[in-house]
């Protein structure tokens, strides 16, 4: 007697029971909205002249080693965000169209890195800033997989490595200062403030000079919204900002995860059922064995 089709199907049904809820995702987690205290940056690509004063100031303020990738030793010239560069200025130039672009952590309203982080080493803390606590980090690098902007970097060259990313100079804010990059910007291309104020300012600039800007503030709703906002005259994706829907990935994943694990009810019920079925079948098999003797 073989395993009947029915038995095989039954097995799949039992096996799939827990995951089945995952695909229905009926319990939609409430969307995360920016808090009133949330602070961030507004970067206006049309104002930036690419002087990279922010890059140097950031390195100093955060005590980072020089990243000489772009120019050779003795220079801090990062080509991209790295374990030694929490911000970087890039140049986009194509078909006669040029623009500078400042990259750093976007401080998402619903950050994927924080959703990924097992013990909350990366977490939205005061002012909605995503900060890093190395005491809670085991270096799994799941944050790097999760971040849609490829922001968190890992100290590959260190035997005791940490995650490196912009923390919006949280240590300077505590001392009543503004972030290093906004403080030194000679053109106010990047400014610091409350997210709500920055958003208002961005909209005002677009309204005042509609020919100067694309009619969109990147980060207002992209990927669920970010606390760093962008204005530009060239399409944002050309500056390296990905096209994301308004529903952030963590919220999608949370729907899947929570629909199965909400209050841990489903696993406990499943455990009880598995225990009961096992008990019944073990008894049955023991009796059968006795009968054979």
């Amino acid at each position, binding site marked *: 007697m073989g395993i009947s089709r029915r038995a095989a199907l039954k*097995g*799949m049904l039992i096996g799939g029971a827990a995951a089945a809820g995952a695909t229905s995702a009926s319990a939609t987690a409430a969307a995360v909205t920016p808090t009133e205290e949330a602070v961030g940056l507004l970067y206006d690509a049309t104002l930036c002249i690419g002087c990279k004063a922010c890059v140097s100031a950031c390195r100093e303020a955060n005590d980072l080693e020089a990243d000489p990738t772009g120019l050779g030793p003795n220079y801090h010239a990062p080509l991209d965000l790295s374990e030694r560069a929490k911000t970087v200025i890039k140049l986009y130039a194509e078909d006669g169209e040029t623009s500078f672009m400042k990259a750093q952590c976007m401080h998402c309203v619903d950050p994927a890195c924080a*959703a990924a982080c097992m013990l909350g080493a990366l977490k939205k803390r005061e002012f909605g800033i995503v900060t890093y606590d190395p005491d*809670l980090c085991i270096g799994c690098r799941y944050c790097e997989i999760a971040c849609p902007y490829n922001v968190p970097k*890992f100290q590959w*060259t260190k035997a005791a490595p940490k995650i490196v990313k912009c923390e919006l100079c949280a240590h300077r804010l505590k001392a009543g200062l503004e972030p290093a990059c906004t403080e030194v910007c000679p053109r106010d291309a990047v400014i610091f403030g409350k997210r709500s104020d920055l958003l208002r300012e961005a909209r005002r600039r677009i309204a005042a000079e509609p020919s100067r800007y694309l009619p969109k503030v990147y980060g207002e709703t992209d990927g669920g919204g970010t606390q760093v906002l962008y204005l530009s005259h060239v399409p944002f994706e050309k500056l390296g900002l990905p096209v994301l829907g308004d529903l952030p990935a963590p919220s999608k994943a949370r729907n899947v995860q929570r629909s199965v694990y909400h209050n841990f009810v489903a696993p406990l019920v499943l455990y009880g059922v598995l225990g009961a079925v096992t008990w019944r079948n*073990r008894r049955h098999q023991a009796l059968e064995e006795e009968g054979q003797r």
Partner: protein
Amino acid sequence: MKAHAEPVGGPLFTPAMRVLAVVVGIGAVVMLWRLVAGLGPTTALNDGYPLGLWIAFDVVTGTALACGGYAVAILVMILNKGRYHPLVRPAILTSALGYSLAGFSVFLDIGRWWYIWKVPLYFWHWNFDSALLEVALCIMAYVVVLWIEVAPAFLEKWSDASNLLLRRMSRVSLRALEKAAIWIIALGLLLPTMHQSSLGTLMLLADSRLHPLWNTRLLPLMFLLTCVSMGFAVVVCESAFSSVAFKRRPETSMLGNLAAAIVPVQLVVVAMRLADLAWRGQLGLLAAGDIRSLLVLIEFGLMLAPAVMLRSAARRRDLGHLVRAAMLMMFGGALYRFDTYLVAFTPGAHWSYFPSVPEILISTGLVAAEIMAYIAVVKTFPILAGRTAVTERQAA
């Protein structure tokens, strides 16, 4: 309900074991180097591809191959197929070894390994949004459960030990385990259901950077189904190899039925993936002709081929045929899971990853260690069904 198992016996340090020991030794030296020098100099990992061979192969694929214990437990305990009992112990042992080594790979992979104890103990910091936390806690717990499930094999041997204390303790523990058995077995069914599906959920967070051929909310279900089919396939291969290596009568009819049961699971996986691609309007990507579409087609092929190979009862009674089909099943599931973690991940055109030599040496070292441990344990402890037991069953 004894499994009628007995030790295989025979010498431990055969030439094959010596070769394996060398492979393990090389791996161990490289491991030390990795712990001292860090991940940068020893691996090809980078900020674009922060997870590589150790996670995609050792953990994501390795734990699925170690799902034999889970698959057999479903069969014997849930579907009430008691006659498959002789397959339980070897399957649980392989699972215990596979999961332990996957856990060890994680330890080597994480950058701040000396903090790993914080994950289970810092419960007030637990982030329940993190699928990885769930995977980590479940796998840690499951490794413990698996070794408890294997324990009777060790305790049975030690209950006849000459040392009085060991003998007494073994007998007491055996009785205690027998009482708690149901709840341990149920845990052994619950934990893989949880973490194997969560291994799929995990990549959902990469959302925008996960290629649409693999990016689906069905990932948790697909990961669960593939781990079950791979688990069964491993049991078929393992049982066949053991019978050849240790000169035992192969349990062909049992294995044939088992292999036949996997076929519908494989068909469901392929059908659901196709339906899902159609539902999301991405079916056209299969015809893109690039490496990714080709790999998905190979995944489908590997999952469908065994269905053709095992179409008749006569073919299911041929051991060589069975093993070949089971191997394809393993490869199909393995490729799908490996691809979801590495090939489907698209951090940007300027990033690339191919495992470094040290990464490969460590992974092969771990696999060799697993094989060595398996051989040593089945030779010393009652894991495989004894010759007498098998012949008795054939007669019955």
